[in-house]
């Protein structure tokens, strides 16, 4: 069966520090992968999506970047965090014929 792993679950980082969040998918090949951010009162905002290795589309210009070094691995990064980067980050995957499945999320607090 397909599973998605996302870590860490919570993270507290100082302003200006780097960030790396990782997401991996098991049990499927060539999935579409997504990074969403959920802020209070704003709903889920799509940040990046990828349809294949090395293929990244950015939906919102910001302080973040994404990479897909392997078929089932998706990484969200930042060189220098801002206070406004705080939020709940969710990774998701989809393949044709299946719905979108979300990971358990990472709560990021920038202090």
């Amino acid at each position, binding site marked *: 069966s397909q599973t998605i792993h*996302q870590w860490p679950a919570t993270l507290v980082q100082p302003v200006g520090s780097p960030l790396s969040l990782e997401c991996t998918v098991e049990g499927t090949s060539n999935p*579409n992968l*997504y990074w*969403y951010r959920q802020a209070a*009162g*704003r*709903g*889920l905002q*799509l940040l990046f*999506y990828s*349809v294949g290795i090395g293929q990244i*589309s950015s*939906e919102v210009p910001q302080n973040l970047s994404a990479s897909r070094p392997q078929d089932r691995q998706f990484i969200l990064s930042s060189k220098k965090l801002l206070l406004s980067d705080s939020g*709940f980050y*969710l990774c*998701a995957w989809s393949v044709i014929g299946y*719905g*979108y*499945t*979300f*990971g*358990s*999320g990472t*709560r990021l607090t920038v202090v």
Partner: protein
Amino acid sequence: EDQVTQSPEALRLQEGESSSLNCSYTVSGLRGLFWYRQDPGKGPEFLFTLYSAGEEKEKERLKATLTKKESFLHITAPKPEDSATYLCAVQPYQAGTALIFGKGTTLSVSS
């Protein structure tokens, strides 16, 4: 611009008091409409996908319906464990695009 609006933002019900949540959308061609349930601090959990107007799907006390402009999530005789935030999302009919989410309806059911 593709857009999803959910109402009400919050809903309080007594156990057994049936009600409906609304999701209205504007999209340039609908590939699918999704309903998710999200508990605090967790990732969204898939409930239903609807593809065409007139379609209905049921799961326990929940029934989702779809028209050309909106979807309803009907909750029949809710229980306290149905308390959660319910998210609606649309997938436009374009290859490679991700889900566009509404802000959600937070449901509280008291006994």
